[in-house]
């Protein structure tokens, strides 16, 4: 290899340095781009072409993206889990104030006051103002049941609306993933490393993980995305849009390609909203209805065996509950006070003794009797309070625990993938020097060539 060979090698070096600076500037430009994984230039030695094996240049083998796919997948899974928990906590938080002991109008306080009013009346069973107070307190119990029931229904409806929103958000991402898949397939067909689309795909997968959990399979036509139950979401360049359909109760179910996947989505916002709507709040609402039904029925049962101040047989204190069917559904929302006058409270047990309080004493004893599902009224309310508090507290501590793992994983991801400004700056200096060195070599060769060319033009011999 002669001077021309050296010149060719040096020109290649110049181009290599330029390419390297391209990579560095791309890295610096994308310092804060989400989903961007840093690029590194992979250089390799040219195969020697000349007679002398020592004389060969270098060329750019590839521009490689440093991406730890295992960590990326773990991050997506944990993102799903964290979002599900924090969404669940938020969706439930509106309900729990109804159960706080600082809430003056809670069911618990209402029932306590109702029994206190009955106790007061027992000391003076004919007192009309005390009878009126009993009805007022019964009204407070009814409205506390109603307002708690309303809070639960409202929270469920809000979660339902969010399910629709999350479905549409997921669809837009699924569509974009399908497009990226298509472009990656084209790049793959021509054997090109398509870093930009890999970045986009990575970013889209993390976004989708925030909305729902999913599974990925690498197949010949790019990435295949399915739900955790295996229902396809994206296959190659086709996205299967999620749809919503109302169920019998008026709540939106989520369908993927005609399959109802509502029960299988656990992660992401969607999973959180579904868990709040279909599990925690649903159970809570049913139990509240049962409690309202049982409480009203227990009071009514005692009331109807007694005699009121006018000597008439007692009639139900609370509406409805419909004891003929025994169906408690909707009882908490529908409960009202049926009596219109305090005189109708059946305090007495016998017609001739309207100042008697023995029936009232039976009603008072309900406070310490198992009236609902083996629980006293206070125990029943206490149980519901624990359930709400525990669901939120568990979701919060899960979110925190997953958050800590996520931070670890993100650190791990960043240390592999994130652009380091220091690294790029020192690379920049290195490539600048390479460029300068290559340029210097060219300049030296140029001088040598001038010397060679001038050899014949001189008056003979060296000057």
């Amino acid at each position, binding site marked *: 290899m002669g001077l021309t060979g050296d010149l060719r090698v040096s020109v290649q070096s110049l181009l290599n340095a330029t390419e390297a600076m391209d990579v560095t500037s791309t890295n610096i430009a994308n310092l804060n781009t989400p989903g961007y994984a840093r690029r590194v230039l992979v250089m390799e030695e040219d195969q020697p072409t000349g007679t002398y094996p020592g004389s060969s240049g270098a060329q750019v083998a590839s521009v490689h993206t440093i991406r730890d796919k295992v960590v990326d997948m773990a991050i997506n899974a944990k993102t799903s889990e964290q979002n599900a928990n924090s969404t669940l*906590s938020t969706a439930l938080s509106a309900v*729990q104030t109804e*159960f*706080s*002991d600082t809430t003056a109008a809670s069911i*618990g*306080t209402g*029932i*306590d*006051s109702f*029994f*206190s009013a009955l*106790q*007061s009346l*027992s*000391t*003076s*069973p*004919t*007192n*009309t103002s005390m009878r009126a107070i009993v009805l007022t307190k019964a009204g407070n119990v009814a409205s506390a049941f109603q307002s708690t029931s309303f809070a639960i229904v409202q929270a469920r409806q809000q979660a339902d609306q969010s399910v629709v929103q999350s479905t549409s958000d997921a669809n837009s991402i699924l569509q974009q993933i399908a497009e990226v898949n298509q472009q990656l397939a084209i790049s793959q067909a021509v054997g090109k490393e398509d870093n930009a689309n890999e970045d986009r795909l990575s970013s889209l997968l993390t976004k989708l993980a925030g909305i729902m959990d999913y599974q990925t399979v690498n197949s010949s036509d790019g990435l295949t995305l399915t739900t955790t139950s295996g229902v396809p979401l994206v296959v190659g360049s086709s996205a299967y849009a999620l749809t919503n359909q109302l169920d019998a109760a008026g709540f939106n179910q989520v369908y993927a390609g005609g399959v109802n996947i509502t029960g299988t989505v656990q992660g992401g916002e969607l999973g959180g909203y579904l868990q709040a709507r279909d599990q925690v709040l649903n159970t809570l609402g049913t139990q509240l209805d049962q409690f309202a039904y049982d409480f009203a029925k227990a009071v009514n049962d005692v009331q109807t065996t007694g005699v009121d101040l006018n000597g008439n047989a007692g009639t139900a204190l609370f509406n409805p509950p419909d004891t003929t069917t025994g169906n408690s559904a909707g009882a908490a929302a529908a409960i009202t006070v049926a009596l219109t006058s305090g005189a109708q409270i059946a305090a*007495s047990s016998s017609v*001739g*003794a*309207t*100042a*008697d*309080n*023995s029936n009232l*004493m039976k009603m*008072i004893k309900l*406070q*310490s009797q198992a009236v609902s599902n083996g629980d006293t009224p*206070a*125990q029943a*309310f*206490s*149980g519901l*309070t*624990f359930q*709400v*508090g*525990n669901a*939120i*507290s568990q979701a919060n501590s899960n979110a925190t625990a997953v*958050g800590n793992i996520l*931070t670890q994983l*993100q*650190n*791990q991801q*960043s*240390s*592999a993938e*994130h652009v*380091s*400004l*220091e*690294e790029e*700056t020192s690379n920049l*200096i290195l490539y600048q020097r390479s460029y300068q060195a290559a340029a210097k070599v060219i300049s030296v060769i140029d001088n040598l060539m001038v010397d060679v060319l001038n050899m014949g033009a001189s008056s003979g011999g060296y000057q």
Partner: protein
Amino acid sequence: MRVNPDFSADMVTLMGQAQQAVQTAAMQLSTGRRVNLPSDDPAAAAAMVEENTLAAGVDQFQSNTTSLQDTLNTANSTLNSVVTLMQKAITLGTEGGNGAMNTSNLTAIASEVSGIKSEMLSLANTSYAGSYLFGGTYNGGPPYSVNATDSTKVDYNGNNHQNMVQISTGLYVASNLPGSQIFSQTGSNVFDSLQALISALQSGNYTAVGAATTNLSTSLNVVSAAQAFYGEASTELSNNETYLAQEKLTITTRQDALVSADMATAATTLTQAQTALSASVQAAAKITQFNLLDYIR
């Protein structure tokens, strides 16, 4: 392993956690409570529901005790008047029965006893807070009334029932004693005894006057026994008041332990959290100042 060049995410998480800790501590200090919402401590919030019921119960037992005290005191002082009246009638009967009185004096004594009888009727019909004290649980009108056909007779319209009132967990006291156990007990009817004395005085039958006076003494014993009932009930109520005050304190202590913040701990936690927050903020500010680019000129 390559050093993570992106510490901003870590910084944000750390500062967020420090800020959360400051908020929690400040909230506890300002409200004085560790548990404000069920999710702060689900088990404590649930236990608090039952403690609140117990506390409301004790408050109500205290109120029941007070109102019973008032009723029983009124009944007791009424019976004091009854006893005074009966003693007066017995004195009059003894005077009228000693044989030293002339007819006009006996008539005068008879009309005095007659006055005692109608006063007695009014005492037996005493009401308090809208209900008659001695009618049992009858509520159709005054428990005692003059018989429509025989005006010398007094009828009892009430019944023999007692109302029980709860004054503590599992503890009940009777809030009344029916007139049938005070004034009109079978064999010892106050009104009949008074009427017998009046009739005997009017007819000048000394033997009958003596017998009627003896009957009155028997009736007085019955009334005294009734006074003892009210006295015992009153003592029980006073003892109960003391017990309830202690019980209330015990419940309040338990409630405090469940939901109240330990102020000293909360204050210390606040200081620690503030220190942690300011340290993480300062660290973030320091670290972000350095960059290799600053050193290359």
